[in-house]
């Protein structure tokens, strides 16, 4: 493998994808604020030299901002409305494209399709607890963004 799975690799990949695609500047934190209310989770499995699943989790309000930024519109703008979950899935798709090359180099790797759902904060904490590695970042407005990796494939 080109790199080892680590919290740092996840943080680096997440930080640069947020910055490049959604113009969000975030920093890794060891003391994340709790999610209040529902959490939007996007999951994407991939199969290369290893099988694993990436999980990106954000609050619904942050998802709206990402949707607006991806489209270059004001938050809640006409084209952004209703695309919030789709935007989180697409962010994860971009993160995964970079992450698998960092992890496996030019080894063949097949990416799955992002699957998006809303879960409770407790359910999301269980996902994090089961992860092989996880990074939590906080943006300038205090929004929490989690990226976790579970080696061993898809978790239903």
């Amino acid at each position, binding site marked *: 493998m080109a790199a080892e799975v680590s919290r740092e690799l996840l943080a680096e990949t997440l930080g640069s994808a947020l910055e490049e695609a959604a113009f969000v500047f975030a920093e890794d934190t060891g003391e994340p604020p709790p999610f209040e209310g529902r959490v939007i989770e996007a999951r994407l499995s991939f199969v290369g030299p290893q099988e694993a699943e990436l999980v990106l989790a954000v609050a619904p309000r942050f998802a709206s901002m990402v949707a607006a930024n991806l489209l270059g519109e004001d938050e809640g703008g006409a*084209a952004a409305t209703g695309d919030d979950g*789709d935007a989180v899935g697409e962010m994860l798709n*971009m993160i995964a494209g*970079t992450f698998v090359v960092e992890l496996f180099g030019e080894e*063949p790797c097949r990416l799955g399709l992002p699957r998006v759902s809303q879960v409770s904060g407790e359910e999301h904490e269980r996902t994090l607890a089961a992860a092989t590695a996880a990074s939590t970042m906080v943006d300038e407005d205090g929004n929490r963004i989690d990226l976790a990796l579970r080696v061993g494939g898809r978790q239903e």
Partner: protein
Amino acid sequence: MSYCVLIADDSAIVRSMVRKSLTMAGLDLGEVLEAANGREALEQLRRTWVDVVFADINMPEMTGLELVQAMKSDEVLAATPVVIVSSERSQARIDALKQSGAAAYVKKPFRPEHFRGVVESLLAIKKEDRHGR
């Protein structure tokens, strides 16, 4: 002359992003068609003349690669250029896509200027081909 384009991606937000980038790139767009997967794209292509197709790789039902292969084996569609728009970063995979017949590759995240150069060069080649025949 305005161009008719088809955007194939299972993500509605990506279809909107591509459409917006093409507009911001200053390209003279005519009809902009959309499809949520390769199969839908193929159906639209068999109904409507399209100058350029923009397609994701990972789509349900029919992938971007399968779409390219289906178009290459269709006498009418074989010359229509397909630009793959994807978050795929592996150079080996990108080279394989081009060998399969994809005309160009745009990496996500993209900017309008990425599309302008690609579309103009593809359509210039297409025009030369037509005049050369």
